[in-house]
């Protein structure tokens, strides 16, 4: 892209490069050229007119996680309309979601139990914006639910439904609302939401 006449290879051209002094540019954008972007603040009109270095690269990263033993059992349980936990022989806690190891005493866990689909709200939040930060008219209520039959503090995170935001409170009793057997496919969304009991 060498446009200068009479410049030899190896000759110092740093001074020439400086004719696009970024400091100067902040005050006189008319001198901007379209082929030098060094140190220039990109402004709104630059974005509009495409005066910026652009690399379009779209990558699609796909994963296919092995569920292993514990996640597999949990998802299989959901398909059957049941919530599966596992019981640690050492600390006796019922862990939900289940795992084959207890994170507190590093013991192998291989006893499987069903826990209830009812429980109490441990904490909740009401989300008024979507992932693009737009206001949503029907706020989404997210809650941590301590399930009956699981050890204290154990449970799952899910949505609350059939309840007005102003009526939700910590300690509120709730019950899972399941999709129909035909619709369930072994996913956390097999439970649609929890509603007040």
């Amino acid at each position, binding site marked *: 892209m060498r446009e200068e006449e009479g410049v030899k290879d190896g000759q110092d051209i740093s001074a020439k490069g400086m004719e696009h002094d970024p400091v100067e540019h902040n005050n006189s954008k008319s001198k901007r050229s379209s082929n030098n972007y060094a140190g220039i603040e990109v402004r709104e009109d630059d974005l509009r007119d495409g005066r910026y270095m652009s690399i379009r690269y779209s990558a699609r990263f796909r994963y296919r*996680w092995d569920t292993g033993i514990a996640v597999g059992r949990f998802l299989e349980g959901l398909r059957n309309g049941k919530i599966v936990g596992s019981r640690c022989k050492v600390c006796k806690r019922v862990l939900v979601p289940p795992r084959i190891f207890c994170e507190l005493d590093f013991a*192998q866990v291989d006893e499987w139990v069903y826990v209830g689909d009812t429980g109490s709200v441990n904490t909740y939040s009401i989300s008024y914006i979507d992932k693009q930060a737009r206001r949503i008219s029907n706020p989404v209520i997210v809650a941590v639910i301590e399930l009956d039959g699981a050890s204290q503090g154990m449970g799952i995170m899910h949505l609350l439904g059939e309840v007005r935001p102003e009526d939700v409170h910590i300690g509120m009793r709730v019950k899972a609302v399941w999709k129909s057997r035909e619709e369930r496919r072994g996913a956390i969304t097999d439970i649609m939401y929890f509603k007040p009991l």
Partner: protein
Amino acid sequence: MIPKGERIGIVGVGYAGLADTKVRSAQEPSHTASSTTNTASASTNTTTTTTTPTPTAATSIRYSYKELMFLAARMAYEDAGIVDVRSKDRISFICSTEDFWEGNMISDEYMPDQLGAVLRPLCTVAADGLYGLITGFMQIRSGLVDVAVVEAHSKLSDVVSKKEIARFALDPVYVRGIYPEIDPYFIAGLEMNRFLYETGNSRESCAKVVSKNKGNALANPRACYASSVDISLVLSSPIVAYPLTSMEISSYADASIVVVLASEHKARMLKGSTDGIVWIDGVGWCSDTPWINDRNLADALYASLAAEMAYKMAGIEMDEPSKYIDLAEIDDTFSYKELQHMEALRLCRKGEASRLVEDGCTAMDGYMPVNPSGGSLGVGYLVEATGLHRVLEAVLQLRGMAGSMQVHGARRAVVQSWRGLPTASGAVAILSSNDS
């Protein structure tokens, strides 16, 4: 050299994944066999016992990555003599993971539970597991902790878009856009071509490396890609990126590897004696420039300098380190990499690697066995876990517990890892047995 009394030792190693667990329990010394039996009992679908280590699928569909980590960690703690990893000992945990392989941002957040590391010091080193080992080494040397648990894993069977992710590592301005349609293996082709041109090493000896490593792997119960192949088959396999053929590229496998380090004092307490402790005599690591077009493609300078650092720490004289070393577990992600790394680690002079391989000097019964485990070509490529797998193999050798792969009288080993395409980064560790 680390003064006596301040040494840091490897006290435990464990793994899960790789070739079938039942196969290895039949092959290994009794102290590890008991934990592999437990490993199998954790599964809902155990396979029948066989004494023939046939190459098996390199996947681990029965377990999630967390479950693999748990099984590997339990085996390592048992090996290390750690009765309760949850006790309030001065212990820290280090994982080597890369978010894109995990498929999760901040993947370190998902590591504590299955290692017994909840509410304990844990950090992630986004590099090969050998960097994790070096980090643990430094934490112990600094006096902060007595024990460091290092974990790395590969669950590549979960990753559908391996090639997309590999391509994502390329420079976005200069490289990625120009070659959008071809596999990043072309970088290995460029490097191999220049390496062979400058050093005079031959394509035949590269093929011999494949034949040797896959052959060595026949004796390794962990190996997923063991086979008996001659060099004509390697050379006639389809060219992927000239001069690199498809059989000269290591294939993916799943595994979790856990290595437990301890200060000398703590190591003696855990093991009851110095038996079974493998000492870390030296470590080093180094990175070259990312400019593929501007860096030295023939010499693997990153490996030379990392090795220099490690040799110096270990008190090994630089002119002929092979005099001090009984075996090498070094990077063989691609066939030529083993030759290139042999020269970089000064196990031979520049241009001599071919001759050593041709003469059988690096074979299992040679004077300097290189990758007696079968390396990545024979065992499988484990991304971040590759370096720790090499440590595990070297530890078994130095303990004299490598079974039918045992290198007779192995007392000192050099372990080296490379960060993979498109990098020029890597680490080295010098390990020695207790009676060296």
